[in-house]
């Protein structure tokens, strides 16, 4: 297994957010984490990379327990994280944003260069010197993914990559994610949008009120309209 999460519990202050979350991601797999607003998708990702201080449980990445490590060490193991809010450095240019994400080559992960990323996201190549603050939402979403890929991760946590984007940009995003998969990057993608998830994912987990309540292939999910309706539709 590429990533195994077991018994993950997280708190914000006195509030208990995640309850015994557990899921697995295989080598080269794209796994969707589905759930409504506030179900705990982002907190799950933030907990995995160590950005939530109060958490317990086991997080095995490539056979190593990383749950006690600080954020930057987890990321340096090859576990990339793309936050939902994008968190572009608005004062820095596109190239400088990429520079912040740059990490050395890793033997078991695809190696990304600026040129390769500009080929993946052609829009970015046209605005190398533009400050991040003066980009559209879709461009920022591409930049935040490209920035994480500069770290040559072998697995990426993608938090709601389709949120707030126009249908045209969403299509580009699907292509980009499929390219990443083809290059050999394992991906966990959190989504509210089932159609988007269906286009890219091999398997899916459903999270509801901080608990995992379904896990299976996309076909298995389609065979259970009851679960889908109970936890995903509005």
């Amino acid at each position, binding site marked *: 297994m590429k990533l195994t999460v077991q018994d993950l519990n997280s708190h914000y*202050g006195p*509030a208990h957010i995640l309850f015994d979350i557990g899921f697995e991601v295989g080598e080269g797999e794209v796994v969707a984490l589905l759930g409504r607003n506030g179900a705990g998708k982002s907190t799950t990702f933030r907990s995995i*990379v160590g950005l939530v201080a109060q958490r317990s449980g086991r997080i095995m990445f490539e056979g190593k327990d990383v749950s006690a490590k600080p954020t*930057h060490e987890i990321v*340096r193991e090859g576990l990339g994280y793309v936050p939902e809010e994008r968190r572009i*450095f608005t*004062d*820095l240019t596109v190239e400088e944003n990429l*520079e912040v994400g740059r990490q050395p080559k890793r033997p078991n992960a695809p190696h990304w260069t600026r040129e390769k990323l500009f080929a993946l996201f052609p829009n970015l190549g046209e605005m190398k010197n533009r400050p991040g603050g003066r980009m559209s939402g879709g461009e920022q979403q591409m930049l935040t993914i490209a920035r*994480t890929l500069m770290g040559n991760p072998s697995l990426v946590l993608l938090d709601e990559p389709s949120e707030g984007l126009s249908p045209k940009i969403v299509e580009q995003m699907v292509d980009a994610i499929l390219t990443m998969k083809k290059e050999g990057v394992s991906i966990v993608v959190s989504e509210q949008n089932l159609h988007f998830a269906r286009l890219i994912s091999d398997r899916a987990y459903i999270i509801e009120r901080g608990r995992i309540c379904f896990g299976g292939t996309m076909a298995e999910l389609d065979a259970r309209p009851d679960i889908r309706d109970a936890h995903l539709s509005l």
Partner: protein
Amino acid sequence: MAFYVVQFLTGLASAASLFLVASGLSIIFGVTRIVNFAHGAFYMIGAYVAFTLTERLSGAFGFWGSIVLAALAVALIGVIVEMVLLRRIYHAPELFQLLATFGLTLMVEDLVVLIWGPDDLVGRRAPGFKGAIDFFGQNIPSYDLFLIVLGPVVLGILWLLFQRTRWGVLVRAATQDRDMVAALGVNQKWLFTSVFAVGVFLAALGGALQIPRDAVHHAMDLRIIVEVFVVVVIGGLGSIVGAFVAAVLVSELNAFGILIFPKISIILVFLVMAVVLIVRPWGLFGKPEAAARKTPGLTVNPWRPLTSNERLASLAALAIAATLPLFAGNYALTVGSEIAIFVIFAVSLHFLMSVGGLASFGHAAYFGLGAYGIAFLAKMAGLPMIVCLLLGPLLGCLGAAVFGFFAVQLSGVYFAMLTLAFAQIVWSIAFQWVNVTGGDNGILGLWPSSWAASPSHFYWLALGVAALVTIALRAMVFSPFGYALRATRDSVLRSEAIGINAKRIQWTAFVIAGTTAGIGGALFAYLKGSVFPDNLGISLSVDALVMVLLGGVETVSGAVIGAIVYKALNIWLVSQTDLSKLVLGGFIMLIVVVFPKGIVGMLEMLAQRRRKSSPPGSPLLAKPIESAE
């Protein structure tokens, strides 16, 4: 004409050191969000170390080598400080950070005297820059010309460092979002340490470069830090270009202010700062802050009024305190009166800081204004004590009304700096307007009327007023006004959304706190029989902050305990040792690092833990709550 040109060049030369120190402070703040009060201390150590090295190493290389070596050595000290002290408090409220670094400053002031002695040291002149250049009959020291060139050169080097190196890009990224930088695999710890080292290096270099111009002495830290605060606030915290422009502006204001308004040269700079802050609260080249961080931490336990048992206990404590004159001597009574007065002072700051969320770094201004109010009324108008006591604090009220109006427009660090600046303005007026205030000599001979003249009577008076003030402010915390004030503290936006006029509420709180501090100052004037500019100085403002912090920011009654413990300890310390600043500074750092919740906060925590462990219920049920804390 030539004279003015020379004056202008002198100003530019002074700007060099100021820029070095200010840019260091700005860089450190940008990334770590810590306003490093100890920056002046590093500047001072830089000067002392450079003095020693230039005395030992000879020749041209010896001098310049010594300057660089001194800056490097001090940067190394900075690294140690960052790793041992600052790493523990990066997530603490900004007030704690300011106080911890202030504690460090106090320690350094004593250490420097221990190592280099109390006398001014005159350093060697720079080889190759010993002479002066004649400019239409006016002399310009050639070293000044060197400094004038150095400023822009350093600015250029810093610009290249931040724009053209990976380190610079990382620092700029971390200035905006340090968690995201960590989430991209960058080790924040070392980034912070390296940034702190660079900042301290610049400060120490600024100090080392001063030795051919100025004598080295042990008070140069506070003088520069106040100026540097002004520079970074005018230029914009975090902006290096801003630091440069503001350093030049401030130095020129100083150079020409002395010619044009010799009486108010200091004030001129502060007035410009106040104007800049009101027009552009984030400084000329700064950027508006996102949401300011909450000052008083997270108040998890909601406040409640005292239970009847606790009320009885407080009354009993007051009654016991009132029996002091029955068995204590005059000295103990004077100390008791002073402590009671400082309870008033601390309680007033606590009201502003903990209830209102506005951490003032210049609260002594209103204490001192109350004291001067008494001095004016008693000495000039010749009014009796009871009338003076009623009217004197109104001067504090007036000052708070004027300054508070501007101050509450800002929040967080900027609020702290603006209150500090206002306090310095008041201090400068008291210090420089000799005809009215007596300047440094103060106003003497203020004695209480006969009914309050004996130490025991005065003690009872101070104790009574302190009790009344404490009760009144406590009642206000649990009044509708108090609820509204706490609402603005917890979220300005939300409180405004439910119809609270946040600025007016905060302004009112500022005036109440200022007036109360003025009452304390009024009593203090009678206790000491005199008024001095020190009664409005920075160190008194910081004393008040430490008292509130020591008691516990998040508690309602902490300020009282904090004032009693701190003042008693302070008076005892001064009587016991010459190194009181060293001990006090270490003590402040200890509270911030080890007991961030203060004495009362700690007692409450212990009491809670006992309550929790007493019922032998299911430990499994209690566990999630425990881990949530």
